[in-house]
C-alpha cells in the first residue's frame, strides 16, 4: 500500500455540514442531482409507468388473466401472420396466447402487480428490520452488539437458497403459506434472509458516527438514547440504506422467478377475481417450456423483467451518485 488512505475523509466534513445545515437542503440537492441523471429519470418513469399499470390492471387488461379460450393456445402476437389460421396472430390477443389459450397481454398487465409487490414489500421489511437492529447493535455496543452479531453471523452462514426452499416447502401447505397465494411466505423468507446485509451496513455507519462530536454533544446535554438514534444516527446513515434498498427490489423479483423454477414459488390463483392472478416469474416459467414452440411467451416476461431491473439499477446508481458526498463506498 504505497498511498495511505487519509484517516479523515472528505465525507466527515460533509457529515459535519449535514449537522450544521438543515438536512432538507442536503436532500434537496441530492434530488436535484438525481433529476440531472438521465438514467435515473428514465428508470423512475419506467417504475412509475409499471406502478400505474399494476394499479389499474383491471381497467387496462383486455381479458381476465385466468380465462382460457379453447382452441386458441400458443397464438403469436397480433403482428405475426401464418398460413395456418390456428397459428396466426389475432387483434383480440395483441401479445398472443399462452399454453392453454390465455391472453398474454392481460397476464403481463396483472403480473405487474405481483412482481412489483414482490419487489417492494420485502425491501421495506428488510430495510426496517435491518435498520432497527443495526442501529441498536451499533449504538448499544458491548454484550448487546455481540449477541446480535452472533445471530447475524448465523444467518449469514445459512445458504439463502436452501433457506428459501426449506421455508417454502415446509410451510406452503400451512395457513401461513396460503396467505396471499403464498406471497406472504415469500416476503417473510426474503426478509429473514436479507435483513442482515442492511443491519451490518447500518451498524458500521453507527459505529463510526457515534464517536462524532455531535453525538457526544447531544449526550452531554442529556438527550435520550432513542432520540439520538432517531434524530442523529438514523438520518446520517440513510444514504447507504436508500441505495441498498434500490438494489433489493430487482433481486426479490428475480428470486421469485427462480423459486418458481425450482417448484417452490407462489401458488397460482384459481379465482378469476383474484387480485394477484399471476406473476412475471410464473409467465417466464411457462414460457420456458415453450421456447421452441412459441418464443414470445418467454420474450414478453423476459423483456418486462429486464426493464424493471434496469430501471431500478439506474435509479440505484443515480441515487448513489446523488448522495455521494455522504457515501462511504458502500453499496
Amino acid at each position, binding site marked *: 500500500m504505497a498511498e495511505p*488512505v487519509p484517516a479523515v475523509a472528505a465525507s466527515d466534513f460533509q457529515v459535519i455540514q449535514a449537522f450544521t445545515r438543515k438536512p432538507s437542503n442536503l436532500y434537496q440537492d441530492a434530488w436535484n442531482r438525481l433529476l440531472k441523471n438521465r438514467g435515473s429519470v428514465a428508470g423512475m418513469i419506467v417504475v412509475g409507468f409499471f406502478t400505474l399499470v399494476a394499479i389499474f390492471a383491471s381497467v387496462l387488461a383486455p381479458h381476465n388473466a385466468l380465462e382460457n379460450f379453447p382452441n386458441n393456445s400458443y397464438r403469436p402476437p397480433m403482428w405475426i401472420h401464418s398460413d395456418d389460421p390456428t397459428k396466426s396472430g389475432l387483434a383480440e390477443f395483441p401479445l398472443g396466447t399462452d399454453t392453454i389459450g390465455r391472453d398474454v397481454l392481460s397476464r403481463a398487465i396483472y403480473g405487474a402487480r405481483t412482481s412489483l409487490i414482490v419487489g417492494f414489500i420485502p425491501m421495506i421489511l428488510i430495510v426496517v428490520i435491518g435498520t432497527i437492529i443495526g442501529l441498536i447493535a451499533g449504538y448499544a455496543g458491548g454484550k448487546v452488539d455481540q449477541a446480535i452479531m452472533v445471530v447475524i453471523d448465523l444467518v449469514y452462514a445459512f445458504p439463502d437458497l436452501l433457506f428459501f426452499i426449506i421455508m417454502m416447502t415446509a410451510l406452503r401447505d400451512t395457513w401461513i403459506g396460503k396467505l396471499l397465494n403464498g406471497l406472504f411466505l415469500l416476503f417473510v423468507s426474503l426478509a429473514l434472509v436479507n435483513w442482515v446485509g442492511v443491519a451490518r451496513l447500518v451498524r458500521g455507519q453507527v459505529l463510526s458516527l457515534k464517536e462524532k462530536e455531535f453525538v457526544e454533544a447531544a449526550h452531554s446535554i442529556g438527550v435520550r438514547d432513542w432520540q439520538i438514534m432517531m434524530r442523529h444516527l438514523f438520518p446520517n446513515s440513510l444514504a447507504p440504506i436508500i441505495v441498498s434498498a434500490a438494489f433489493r427490489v430487482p433481486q426479490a423479483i428475480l428470486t421469485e422467478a427462480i423459486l418458481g423454477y425450482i417448484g417452490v414459488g407462489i401458488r397460482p390463483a384459481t379465482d378469476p377475481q383474484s387480485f394477484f392472478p399471476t406473476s412475471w416469474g410464473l409467465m417466464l416459467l411457462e414460457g420456458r417450456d415453450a421456447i421452441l414452440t412459441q418464443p414470445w411467451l418467454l420474450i414478453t416476461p423476459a423483456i418486462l423483467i429486464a426493464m424493471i431491473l434496469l430501471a431500478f439499477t439506474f435509479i440505484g446508481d443515480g441515487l448513489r451518485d446523488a448522495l455521494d458526498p455522504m457515501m462511504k463506498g458502500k453499496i
Partner: protein
Amino acid sequence: MTEYYIRRALFIIPTLFLVSLVTFIIMHATPGGPWDTDPGSRTSDPRVAERLNKAYGLDKPLYFNPESAQRAIAEGKEPLAIAQAFMDSQFNQFLANLAQGKFGPSFRYRGREVEDIIFEAQSGKPFWQNRFVATAALGVVALVIAVAIGFPLGVIAALKQNTWWDTFSLFFATVFYGIPNFVLAIFLILIFGAGLGWIKIVEIDYWDNLRPWILPSFVLAIPTAAFLARLTRSSVLEVMRMDYVRTARAKGLAERVVVIKHILKNSMIPVVTFLGPALAGLITGSFIIETQFGVTGIGRLFVESISRRDYSLIMALTLIYAFFIAFANFAVDVIYGFLDPRIRMGRG
C-alpha cells in the same frame, strides 16, 4: 490481534452447529418423507415405509429419547447407559456421525454413504474427479470470469462517469443480470450450440476438456459480474475524489500513472474483500446451472435432496455450504485487516 483471529476462527464451530440445528428442525417439520417418491410405485404399502424407517433409524425421536431412558432405568442400567439411551435420537446420531467425519447413509441413494456421494470419483476415474471438485471448479472459473468482466466494466464506468460509456457498461451488465439464469442458460445453449455450432448442445466429457466449462461458468458468473461492476464503479469514484489523487494530478503525473498507481490500486480494497463471499456465493448458487449443463456437482444434488427429503444429504450439503460462507467471511476479516490496518475489528 492473533488472539482475535483465533477466536473468530473458532467461532465458526458454534455457527455451524446452529446452522445444522436450524436445518434439522425445519427439515423435519416439512411434510412428506424420503419414501414418498413415486405415486405409482408399490411403496403404497405403509409397511414398506415402516420397515425402511426402522432400518434407517427414522423411527427414533428427533432430539431426545426419554422413553428409551426410562426403559434403561427400569432395567437398572448404569447412569452412563441411561444417559446414552436418553441421547439415542436422530439429531444426536447425526452429531455422533459427524464427530467421526461421517454424514451417515443417504436415503435416496440407498446403500451409499453421503460422504462417498459427495467426495468419491466415478469408478475408474482419478480421485479428484468428484462432485465436490466439479462444483468448486465451476465456482472458481466463474469467479475468474466475473472479475474479468465486472472489474473493467466498473472501472470504465467510473472513469467515464455519466457518459454513454457509463450507461452502456451498466446496461450490458444488467441486461444479462436481468435474465434469470435458467432462461439465460437454455438461450445461450441454443445460440452457441444450435445456432453457431461452437459447442455441443449436450457436453459429455467435462473432465477431459476445457470447452464445456465456459458456458456454465459464464452464466453462473453474470450476476456476480454485474454486482462487481457496480461495486468497482462506486469504489473508483470514491478514490478519485481523494486528495492524494488530486495531488498526483496537480504534480503533473501522466494520467496513466494516476489511474493505475493511485486510483486502481486503492479502489481494489473493497473489491478484493468482496471476492471471498463471492466465491462462496458462486459455489452455493450453481444448482440450476449444473442441472441445465449436466455438470455432476453438488449443487444439483442439493435441490434434489430437498425435494426427495434425503435428510442426511441435506444436512451434509448445508454444512458444507455454511462452512464455505463462514470461512469466506472470516477470510474477508483477515484480509481486510491486512489491507487496511485501521479497520481491524471495527468492522462489522
